[in-house]
């Protein structure tokens, strides 16, 4: 397993290095990070703009800038940001935490729900649970997540006004100032619920379809028929002979989908004003903050690698064939 992890990391570093070169070049030649400053009225003195250019190293040739950045990253310094006071590493750190909270919860929720729904749907193919679930999944798949987010937000507010209780919140991850005790739990929950639903629903739709297919395939497998012929109970067959083998494909799908979850989080965070990675990326792009965008990519890619590793480990847990081939 250790060898696998090391190999994965090595290839991830290679991929990341390539990605960073591409992104670095593209961003650096694409726009002017000082555009906003130059566009001020009344105009900002030339000396100030020159000082900013020097601080950001805009006058160095691209390769030099890249190497400077790279050597900085090795020592944990992500380089200067267009926003002078921004410590890219520190800010990204807190934002990663915020996004992870949202994404992890949504993943767990979507996964659990889709496992249940997909299994139930496949076990009752062409009967009412399936006839209900399948079109629902199709509709969810067709929903633009931002459309859903905007709509849910309005419904949430409507419900608040209707009940007279502040059940849902639309801004950030907690109120300011933070309440204490149980109120804090309710407060955080109220902030989490809408964005989590938005993020989870879209993936629920995809994953439940995959799970349905996987279970349907498992159901058709000989070993299930054999288990039936052995006279096992329905519950035992579903648990050990249908669902467990069906977990193998779903683990792969989820791992492959994780970058998409992060992308989805960009939109969810935007709509619900979470100060997470999504906002960081959008701001950085708007500001042409090369170093910040690169740092973001680094973190996002690392997260994907970590999740993939996790998926590999899970894979080993659910599939003995993999476990024995790799250990």
């Amino acid at each position, binding site marked *: 397993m250790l060898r696998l992890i090391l190999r994965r990391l090595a290839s991830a570093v290679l991929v990341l290095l390539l990605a960073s070169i591409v992104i670095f070049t*593209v961003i650096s030649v694409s726009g002017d990070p000082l555009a906003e400053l130059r566009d001020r009225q009344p105009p900002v003195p030339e000396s100030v703009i020159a000082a900013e250019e020097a601080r950001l190293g805009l006058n160095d040739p691209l390769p030099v800038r890249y190497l400077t950045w790279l050597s900085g990253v090795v020592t944990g310094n992500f380089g200067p940001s267009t926003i002078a006071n921004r410590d890219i590493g520190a800010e990204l750190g807190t934002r990663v935490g915020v996004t992870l909270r949202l994404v992890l919860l949504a993943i767990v929720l979507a996964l659990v729900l889709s496992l249940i729904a997909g299994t139930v749907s496949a076990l009752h193919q062409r009967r009412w649970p399936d006839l209900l679930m399948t079109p629902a999944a199709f509709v969810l*798949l067709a929903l633009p997540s931002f459309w859903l987010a905007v709509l849910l937000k309005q419904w949430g507010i409507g419900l608040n006004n209707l009940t007279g209780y502040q059940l849902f919140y639309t801004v950030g991850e907690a109120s300011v100032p933070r309440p204490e005790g149980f109120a804090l739990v309710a407060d955080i929950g109220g902030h989490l619920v809408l964005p989590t639903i938005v993020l989870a629903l879209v993936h629920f739709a995809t994953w439940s379809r995959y799970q349905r297919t996987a279970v349907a395939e498992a159901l058709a*497998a000989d070993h299930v*028929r054999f288990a039936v*012929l*052995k006279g096992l109970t329905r519950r035992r067959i579903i648990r050990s002979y249908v669902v467990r*083998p069906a977990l193998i494909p779903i683990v792969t799908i989820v791992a492959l989908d994780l970058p998409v979850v992060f992308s989805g989080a960009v939109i969810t965070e935007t709509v619900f004003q979470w100060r997470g990675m999504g906002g960081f990326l959008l701001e950085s792009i708007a500001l042409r903050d090369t170093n910040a965008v690169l740092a973001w990519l680094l973190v996002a890619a690392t997260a994907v690698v970590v999740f993939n590793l996790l998926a590999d480990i899970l894979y080993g847990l*659910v599939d003995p064939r993999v476990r024995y081939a790799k250990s």
Partner: protein
Amino acid sequence: MAVTVRRFLRHKVGMVALGVLLIVILAAIIVPPLWPYDYTDITPQLSQAPSVQHPMGTDTLGRDLFALVLRGMQQSLLIAFSVTIIACIIGVVLGVTAGYFGSFIDATVMRAVDLVLTLPTLALAAFLGSLVTGRGVSWLGLAMVLGSLMWTSVARLVRGVVLSLRELAFVDAARVMGASPTRIMFRHLVPNVSDHIVVAGTLMFGVAILAESSLSFLGFGVQPPDTSLGLLVANAQSAVLTRPWLFYFPGLLIITIVLSVNYVGEGLRDAFNPKSSPTNPLATTRRRSRNRKPQMRDAANHAVLKVTDLSVRFGPLEAVNSISLEIQPGEVVALVGESGSGKSLTGLSLVGLLPSSAVGTGSVVFAGEELSGLAFEQWRKYRGRRIAMILQDPSTTLNPVLTVGAQFEDSMKLDSGGVSRAEARRRAVELMESVAIKDAEARLDQYPHQLSGGMRQRIAIALAMVHDPDLIIADEPTTALDVTVQAHVMATLAVARERTGAAMLFITHDLALVAGIADRVAVMHQGVIVEESDVFSIFDNPQADYTKRLLSLAPRITGKAVEKP
């Protein structure tokens, strides 16, 4: 191809979705020149709700929303279409190349896939999109960016399919003929992945529409004054309450398009790859009254199994045609027939596992009790305990994720309680040793994939013996095995039968194989039992022409070594 088209034409939901999609596309092409308003026209009617003149209302500047939506549809569809084409071309070329050549090229392509997958597509597209559109390129730039990021799914899919196609004999045949790699890739492989590509492309079309609208929402997509469905929704975010038409019309249109696209994709998938009706051996049969009392029929007859007038029908096709069969306690009856004779369906109908598209009629009486029409739980009184079955392919009959020991335990603890774990293992070892499995103890902790085919089939036989059944049904238990292993398995079956004293129904296509084991032989041909008699009569003095033909055609080794006793 024609078959596929016909199958798709029969797919109701797919056809409806295709119709909707065609209407949308046609509307986007045909209607704008006919519609009195251009999307750039500003009319005096500002921010009007839908009316006869403006069926979808107008926006802030007084532009006709219907005209805008049409334009948005054009742009969204154009972008999605281009994205799909670009992604499919890149994905197919790279996927086929990687899949066919493997090794270094494959590794490189897969790294490239990793590279793109590592970067969340939307985020990167957000950036690159701002670049491309920043230079004034609108839909084409956007399409190129999205396409160059979305090819990975196609590449992965195509590579996967090609990897398996590469193993198929027609590719080897082409190589032996001297075909160049290019010819093999584009003449043989690409046409054969085309159905996957069509389905994947269709689904990608939907994803591309959503991706484009998400990008426009974030401000990195299509730029005003041009518009797309996504941009229309994005601009109407705060109008949900005040001017809902601006928000709902384009939004619902996106949903409609993507939904239709996905259903068309589903329809195509079904058409290319017709699913047999869902197989669910867990489903409860509800064909007949559920609480049918087991009835004693013909008490004088002590047959373990008495099949009367059994028929199996797939629609109009009569696969098994009113056959009758009796098996006495301890008797071995062989059911011999070539493929399509209905012998396996007969076997499945005896244990209530016919595919749901098949309709079985007739009576199956086991030890005096009627079996047909039982519910799942009622079946459990017989399956495993009194009727055991051994299936054809030992590589798939055992659960790949459970150890052999666990599968024995499952069989022994049919209901909660029962034997202890240690006792279960002890008995499993005993059963395995009885079918001549060496190192039985060690095998318990192994997984099926760690065992050879012959070993797996022996374990399947041992599993069938757990409850000393009255009847063992063996459905082609040696077909997938080598000749020597076949001999071992046949011997094992004989041991199992003797040890349990069970009767056996042995289903096979190989007449020679039953000579050593069967007491009686029934020969099946085209759903009918053409001849049934004791084993010696069949071989010495076959009556039916079909039996004679089978016997005469069976390859035989003419050598002293065999004929010597």
